[in-house]
């Protein structure tokens, strides 16, 4: 691919006519939005390692955009026996849920929600259905305030080419006691798949949402793009969990933004276990007074997996708080990049903002780069950031082995203990067990 073509990112599959094909059955406002997004995409150069935010992820080497095609998959029936076995297994591990969505190759094939919640006005559906049934809600919030195409090259690409997504709406004062569980499966190798999530939690509502994406290994590079928009209105409580378990060959790219209004608490957990390359951009916006966000991240790399997290904590209003903890273990020749910034606006006095990134290297070939940053424009704030990259403590290993644990068991316990701190902060039923099990699987190959 020539320099200028690479920079533009227009290919045989990813081009304006692909956008037009998607628009055929869609309302005008959406067509305009997609076309606008596409124009921005073409204008925005492909990020290069010259940009600080992309210094350690070289798209030129890691992303074969011109080999990607668009999904040809047809809609699988809403019948679990027709679904891949691993997808069903992943669902079975999930404990109680208020509702489910199943997405296979970009199509929402199943959704269910407790009748009582439907009666209270909760909406859980595919984005396409939501556009037909609740057009104004979606029009207000889809790719506008949270992840607009102006956000960057990939946000623009996603806003232009998304094929389907998930819409979750919780009316004021409605509180869900168990999570919404979303399970996505990708089967087509060599495709680019674009999905979105839009969660809108009205005043004093409460919701937790767990989104798991998985696949087998791919023979050709497969691109999974995701745009996540989460809005927590006043006093709302939202927990968002993403578990990425894609197979090797996948390039996972996710742009996420959370908007927390007054007294809202909006927590996120990003778990990255799979894919060959994984890039997550997360921005937490503390818009209203006393808004609060806990931001958790956990990753475990082996082989030559590459994880890149780019986070920002934007404090706009006074008395807001954010607390970020990202922890990862890296085996073999895997690599992680964490780049985080806390930004405190002059209007955000009495902000509490913390940021911690800790890495555990399990092999001499693994590597972690941690780049924490602060940009503080208010004077009355409490902020701290810290980063560590360490190796497995040989004294800890000796201690555990001296109690009869094998070398592998000892390492497993130390690593799980190290990572477990993250999970213990957001102990959603089923998530802890599942993530622990997948990490154990990866450790057993150590």
């Amino acid at each position, binding site marked *: 691919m020539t320099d200028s073509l690479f920079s533009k990112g227009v290919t045989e599959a990813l081009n304006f006519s692909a956008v037009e094909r998607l628009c055929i059955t869609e309302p005008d406002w959406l067509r305009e939005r997609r076309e606008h997004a596409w124009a921005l995409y073409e204008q925005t150069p492909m990020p290069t390692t010259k940009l600080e935010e992309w210094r350690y992820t070289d798209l030129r080497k890691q992303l074969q955009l011109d080999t990607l095609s668009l999904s040809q998959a047809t809609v699988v029936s809403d019948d679990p026996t027709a679904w891949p076995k691993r997808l069903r297994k992943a669902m079975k591990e999930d404990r109680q849920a208020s509702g489910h969505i199943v997405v296979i190759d970009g199509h929402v094939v199943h959704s269910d929600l407790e009748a009582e919640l439907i009666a209270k006005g909760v909406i859980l559906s595919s984005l396409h259905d939501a556009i037909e049934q609740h057009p104004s809600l979606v029009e207000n919030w889809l790719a506008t305030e949270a992840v607009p195409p102006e956000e960057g090259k990939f946000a623009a690409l996603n806003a232009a080419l998304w094929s389907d997504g998930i819409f979750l709406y919780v009316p004021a004062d409605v509180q869900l006691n168990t999570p919404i569980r979303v399970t996505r499966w990708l089967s087509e190798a060599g495709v680019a798949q674009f999905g979105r999530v839009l969660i809108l939690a009205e005043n004093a509502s409460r919701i937790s949402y767990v989104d798991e994406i998985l696949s087998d290994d791919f023979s050709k590079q497969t691109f999974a793009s995701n745009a996540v928009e989460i809005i927590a209105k006043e006093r709302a409580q939202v927990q968002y969990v993403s578990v990425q378990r894609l197979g090797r060959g996948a390039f996972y790219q996710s742009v996420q933004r959370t908007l927390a209004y007054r007294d809202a608490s909006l927590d996120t957990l990003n778990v990255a276990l799979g894919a060959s390359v994984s890039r997550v951009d997360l921005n937490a916006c503390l818009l209203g007074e006393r808004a609060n966000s806990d931001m958790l991240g956990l990753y475990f790399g082996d082989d030559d997996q590459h994880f890149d997290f780019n986070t920002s904590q934007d404090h706009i209003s006074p008395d807001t708080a954010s607390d970020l903890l990202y922890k990862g273990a890296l085996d073999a020749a895997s690599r992680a990049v964490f780049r985080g910034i806390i930004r405190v606006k002059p209007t955000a006095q009495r902000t509490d903002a913390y940021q911690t990134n800790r890495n555990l290297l399990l092999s001499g070939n693994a590597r972690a780069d941690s780049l924490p940053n602060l940009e503080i424009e208010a004077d009355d704030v409490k902020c701290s950031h810290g980063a560590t990259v360490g190796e497995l*403590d040989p004294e800890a290993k000796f*201690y555990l*082995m*001296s109690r009869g*644990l094998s070398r592998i068991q000892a390492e497993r316990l*130390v690593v799980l203990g190290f990572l477990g701190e993250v999970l213990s902060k957001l102990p959603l039923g089923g998530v802890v067990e599942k993530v622990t099990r997948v990490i154990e699987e990866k450790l057993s190959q150590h």
Partner: protein
Amino acid sequence: MSSEPMSDTHILKIESLEAKVATENLDILNGVNLEIGKGEVHAIMGPNGSGKSTLAKILAGHPSYEATAGRVLFKGQNLFELDVDERSRAGIFLAFQYPVEIPGVSIANFLRTALQAHLVDEEELDIFEFTDMLTERMSMLEMDISFAERHVNDGFSGGEKKRNEILQMAVLRPTLAVMDETDSGLDIDALKIVANGVNKLTEEDPEMSILLITHYQRLLNYIKPDFVHVMVDGRLVRSGGPEIALELEKDGYKNWKDSGAVSSGVPKTA
């Protein structure tokens, strides 16, 4: 594997053991001889830096140390042929002078994993039996049951760490317990509780042998040694009965801290 007919009574036999720091030319043990019989309690006393902990760690298989001469037989088997975890499963337990913190791992989970590792032939640990047993062991050591959910040694006080060592010993029930300064850091009440716990274990298994490392006579009032040894400069320079501890309490090590005395094994001014 070299093994020789085990005498009925000896559980541990250390012969002319010399050892150094693995990564440098620093000799620490300079010919240690020690035999411990079934059910015997031995105490080693000695000045700071004389090599007591090194001996203890070598018995447990710490990778920082390397034996350069001599041998150690445990139940007649060459100890150095066993890896750290195998020694534990064979029945050696080391109560650490400085227990290690393992963040994120609960005591219950750790001990369950350890005990499971001690079971033979893929026998499955019964989780209910385990919980009952752990509860009972904790109450024996007057530990609050909530401790089981705390992370191993993480943020523990010095005394809590030591008590946690003995809890592990009480759960794993070794044949040879090496206790490295378990008494330091314990308050007077805690010392009694821990000592009573150890004595209970000896009652349960009269064949359990103990190697105590301590600086203070006080512990030996509660756990009565059959033999007391004095270590100076990496050698056991004197062995005898409990009266040695009383002598040391009175006179300290001044009579022993001279190379001439060490080689003769007799106090200079005796």
